[in-house]
């Protein structure tokens, strides 16, 4: 006698219990605190905030802890939480020119007002495993100097004033909000940038890399990469003034790319733009390259058929929460559909066999 399998509910509860236990791991090892993750896994926290579209380092650290370090799972937790939050209003655009920079470099000029500031970067570390960290020794304090209270104007501004850059182009007064409106194609640049800013870092990295290797090559120079804190202000109509709500750390990348021009217009450099929450420079540079590649139509370039030029391909596949959900759903039961395919293939094979016999 056959009895169908039952007990989905019990199985789910047991799986959740086991998962919680595995998350904690060996209880002989002290538990990680959210504060530790926030302080010592800051780049993971930054990525989770950026792709989770929610600037809250504590929640991002909590999500990482809950997700056992699976960053896409942590991003998912942030997104699902974010979507339940009431919206009180929109901030003023942030002024990245007034950023308090921890890092600011330009690849296009040897020096510029404000200087080249390396900041806390992996760039020139030799990638040698540091076994001293395994011994949990305290890190000696870094040498300090008094920060120069100099303004750090955008490097791009110099090229702008010389007329060498294409106009940035005024966007719509109110940019569309991809979290409140369904994606509509073709998308304006503001919408594309939103989608890229929360897109998967790995996906954008691969696309950006493909442009460097010749799939819609656009010869990007990093005019400037800056990381630091900017003030977020919001206008309170009742008070008639803007008030500062707080600060967020951003990474901004502006690229200067090969110029365009025509018989009527002198050649001008073109631009790509990346702006991402937190210290996330791989993502910001990738974003700038992909942004630039997606602008082929407005810049009168050819459609080379390169993946990074294909707006629909890029925007519809950049979101790792959409992608991981749909990818992983194929492990759900599909036996009803499979059964219908089984019936069909058996029938077609029977008919094909009968046809062969008849022919013989």
């Amino acid at each position, binding site marked *: *006698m*056959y*009895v*169908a399998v*039952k*007990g*989905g*509910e019990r*199985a*789910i509860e047991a799986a959740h219990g086991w998962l919680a236990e595995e998350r904690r791991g060996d209880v002989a090892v002290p538990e990680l605190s*959210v504060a530790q993750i926030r302080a010592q896994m800051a780049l993971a926290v930054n990525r989770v905030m950026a792709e989770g579209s929610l600037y*809250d*380092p*504590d*929640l991002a650290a*909590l999500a990482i802890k809950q997700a056992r370090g699976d960053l896409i799972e942590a991003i*998912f937790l942030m*997104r*699902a*939480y*974010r*979507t*339940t939050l*009431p919206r009180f209003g929109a901030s003023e655009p942030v002024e990245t020119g007034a950023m308090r920079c921890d890092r600011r470099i330009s690849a296009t000029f040897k020096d510029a007002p404000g200087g080249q500031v390396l900041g806390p970067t992996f760039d020139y570390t030799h990638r040698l495993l540091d076994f001293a960290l395994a011994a949990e020794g305290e890190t000696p304090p870094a040498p300090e100097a008094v920060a120069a209270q100099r303004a750090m104007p955008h490097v791009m501004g110099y090229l702008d004033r010389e007329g060498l850059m294409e106009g940035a182009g005024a966007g719509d007064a109110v940019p569309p909000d991809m*979290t*409140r*409106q*369904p*994606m*509509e*194609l*073709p998308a304006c640049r503001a919408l594309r940038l939103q989608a890229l800013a929360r897109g998967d870092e790995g996906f954008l990295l691969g696309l950006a890399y493909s442009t460097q290797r010749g799939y819609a090559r656009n010869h990007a120079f990093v005019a400037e990469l800056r990381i630091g804190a900017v003030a977020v202000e919001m206008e309170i109509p009742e008070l008639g003034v803007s008030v500062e709500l707080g600060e967020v750390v951003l990474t901004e990348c502006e690229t200067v790319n090969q110029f365009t021009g025509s018989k009527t217009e002198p050649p001008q450099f073109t631009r790509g733009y990346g702006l991402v929450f937190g210290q996330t420079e791989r993502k910001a540079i990738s974003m700038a390259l992909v942004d630039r590649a997606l602008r082929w139509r407005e810049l009168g370039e050819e459609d080379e058929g390169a993946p990074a030029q294909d707006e*629909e391909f890029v925007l*519809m596949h950049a979101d790792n*929460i*959409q992608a*991981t*959900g*749909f*990818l*992983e*759903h194929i492990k*759900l*039961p*599909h*036996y*009803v*559909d499979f*059964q*219908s*395919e*089984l*019936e*069909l293939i058996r*029938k*077609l094979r029977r*008919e*094909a066999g009968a*046809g062969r016999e008849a022919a013989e």
Partner: protein
Amino acid sequence: MSISGKMKPGAGMTEYNFAYLDEQTKRMIRRAILKALAIPGYQVPFASREMPMPYGWGTGGVQVTAACLVPEDRLKVIDQGADDTTNAVSIRKFFEKTAGVATTEETARASLIQTRHRIPETPLTGDQVLVYQVPIPEPLRFLEPRETETRKMHSLEEYGLMHVKLYEDISRHGAISTAYAYPVKVEGRYVMDPSPIPKFDNPKLSDCPAIQLFGAGREQRIYALPPYTKVVSLDFEDHPFEASKADQDCALCGSATSYLDEVIVDDAGGRMFVCSDTDYCRARRAAGHVGAQGVPHEEAGA
């Protein structure tokens, strides 16, 4: 910034709104549902929200259900025709927690049914709403990946590509090789994906007394069939559509007309066929029907 100000660890789902979604989101979904009912088979874009379950696991259906539920509803959730598959259990739990609605496994007692991949065997009534979970709402997507193109095709009623594909099947295999998510035409206008139901279920789409709603969360589309809408499975005169199932009777309840799952029962490849609709099978057994490998209802219950 402190965590305690924003999240209250240990607090239940009661802190969320009725049926989880906030009212503005529900209004947006409700407007989309009304336009979907007004243009049967047309996919209405909606600003799908991130749900606390993965895309591809029923987020579209869940959002549509959340926008439709009333406290008086009796909800049934099935996946593959069964009430006790893990994802059906998970979604049912979600609404028990967030909407406090009663649930049931009995098709006839349910006022709202959310389904993945099946239409119940028991005929639906005019008092019921059937909500389908849809992975890829665009029937033309496998022929043309670009939304910008398929939108044009729908607007121009240009469905030649679909007919060419189906006809190529016939020339290659002697039959249309689509067994599920078999495309349909609604009221002679829009070609529609009926979600990945087996084509066996397609005839039940047409002239159905219940309201049928389709939700695709990741793809941000809602579409609908009002009651008694005419729905025709695409076919050709010389190759008419055929709803097919395994040529067997249910081993447990003996039904010769219900859609069957094939279950492998031993290492030698032995198999049996049982109803995919677990409630239908249970009700038949309760009414005294016994299949070849079934046992009378009382014994099974003991």
